[in-house]
């Protein structure tokens, strides 16, 4: 496989974590402009873990996920009772605070005669665990997609369970859910923490794929993009956000025909697509119809 295709496929996988993070919150009825913050927390935490403290990547990624979940929980605690644009703006404010904090962090150490670590706006260089282990790009790609599939499997299990039904109920009608005995606040906090962990995992892998991150990687553009991926793909199934990422990064960025005009094409296409399918490509109705058709075939 040529290097370019490898890069595109890896990026589709990496940003799928962020899109799935936004999707999870959307299913529970909250629209976040701020998931990029936890992507950034994951990138910085895992980078510090491997490049500065000598941890292996799996350990650093797990620690990054825990930190991402904790950060998302803390942001969610005072904001999750808000709805709609209020919650979106509160998460945006929180994410911008995280980005500015990344700009203020100077924590460097000399390792093998080279200064490594976050250096404020200059970014964080030398996250080379993957390179130094001699791990092939193909292997890293496979690892990323194995994790994406693992997450998709987890989503599929949750969707079929009582928990999945609870999530969708909280998203559709929180008052009704509360009347039926669901602790809405606790469910939403749990969802926010899980979404934070998911974004942090993506960020941890992203940092090790790029070997370099800087605060402006994690600005509002990234957050609104991931939200748009989930909404264009549709909220019916966890495959929706993947489809959204694949459409933008996979199709448009890789087909160099649109070089320079990519956003003009993509922007117009998305606006038109939303007129035809306002709830995204794979919306709830479509997914339910497909599921029903499959069931009928199985019983027939």
């Amino acid at each position: 496989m040529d290097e370019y295709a490898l890069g595109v496929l890896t990026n589709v996988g990496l940003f799928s974590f962020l899109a799935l993070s936004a999707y999870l919150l959307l299913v529970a009825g909250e629209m976040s402009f701020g998931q990029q913050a936890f992507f950034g927390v994951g990138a910085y935490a895992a980078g510090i873990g491997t490049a500065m403290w000598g941890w292996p990547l799996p350990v650093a990624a797990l620690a990054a996920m825990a930190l991402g979940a904790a950060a998302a929980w803390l942001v969610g605690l005072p904001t999750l009772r808000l709805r709609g644009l209020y919650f979106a703006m509160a998460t945006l404010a929180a994410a911008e605070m995280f980005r500015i904090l990344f700009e203020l962090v100077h924590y460097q150490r000399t390792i093998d005669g080279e200064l490594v670590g976050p250096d404020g706006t200059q970014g964080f260089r030398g996250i080379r665990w993957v390179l130094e282990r001699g791990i092939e790009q193909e292997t890293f790609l496979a690892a990323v997609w194995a994790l994406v599939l693992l997450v998709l499997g987890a989503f599929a299990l949750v969707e079929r369970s009582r928990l999945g039904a609870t999530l969708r109920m909280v998203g559709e009608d929180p008052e009704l859910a509360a009347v039926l005995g669901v602790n809405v606040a606790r469910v939403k906090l749990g969802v926010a923490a899980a979404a934070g962990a998911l974004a942090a995992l993506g960020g941890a892998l992203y940092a090790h794929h790029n070997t370099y991150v800087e605060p402006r990687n994690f600005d509002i553009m990234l957050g609104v993009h991931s939200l748009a991926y989930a909404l264009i793909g549709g909220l019916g199934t966890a495959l929706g956000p993947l489809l959204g990422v694949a459409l933008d990064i996979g199709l448009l960025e890789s087909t160099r025909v649109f070089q320079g005009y990519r956003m003009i094409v993509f922007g117009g296409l998305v606006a038109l697509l939303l007129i035809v399918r306002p709830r995204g490509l794979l919306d709830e109705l479509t997914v339910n119809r497909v599921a029903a058709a499959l069931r009928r075939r199985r019983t027939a």
Partner: protein
Amino acid sequence: MLVDVVQNTLDGLMLGSAYALLALGFTLIFGVLRRANLAYGPAIMLGAYAATWVNLQFHPGVLVLAAVTIAGATLAGTYVERLCFAPHGRRGAGDAAAIASMVGSFALWMQLEEAATLWLPKHLYGFPPLYDGPPLGLGPLTLRVEYLAMLACAAAACFGLHRLLNRTRFGLAVRAVVDQADAARLAGINVPRVFMLVFALASALGGLAGYLIVAAHEQVTPMLGMWSTLKGMIAMMLGGLGSLPGAVVGGLALGLIESHSQWLFGPQYRDLIAFLILFALLAVRPSGLWAMLRRSPAPAP
């Protein structure tokens, strides 16, 4: 010390009047349609780029440049309305329609921004100032004429909007649609047309704000689109979602917060503090500063 505080407060109020103008347009759209237009800033950016191009070609006077910016922003805003808001049903068509409009406007944000940077690809273009002379002195204080113009325009826009909404047939139609879109339609009001006109008016206000801002900064950069959307949204949320006096209060408050915290702590902390205050306010009093000032019971978000 005291002079600095007074000077910072003055600077903050002037800066805040630009934010207030941006927030007025944003709020007008949200108040009437109950939908957020993320492409608001990029439409302003397109207007400013059109004016920059006209300036490079013909070097016209300031009034022509202002008119081109406003016209460009209005055209781009109307395009956004036609493509992302008009097709998604009427007001109150539900959260899903509002979200579809918002995501569509984000897609067009990307599109407008790329169109503008393809048109004028440099990272920075100079822009002629509104006024060439030195700043006015007032004892130990200084006042920039551009900022005075902003304050005057913000005040005039408030007054004009108030008159328009409360004293004209069009304003009556807008208020009727805000109260009950269905009843307004039954009474013979062309609701989609009201939406389109409100959108065009809001974009024109944004264009005016955009012109005053680029003329004060004397430069145009591709950051203008995101900057305008963000500052407009933050000011709107600070003041209180969907309230016109709230937009003015929020804009002025944001200007004051920024000028004082920049002076006290420097530019990086300025933004941090502005976002911290927005976050804290949303967590504690989501109905915003205007509702707090009026001491009315806070409506549930």
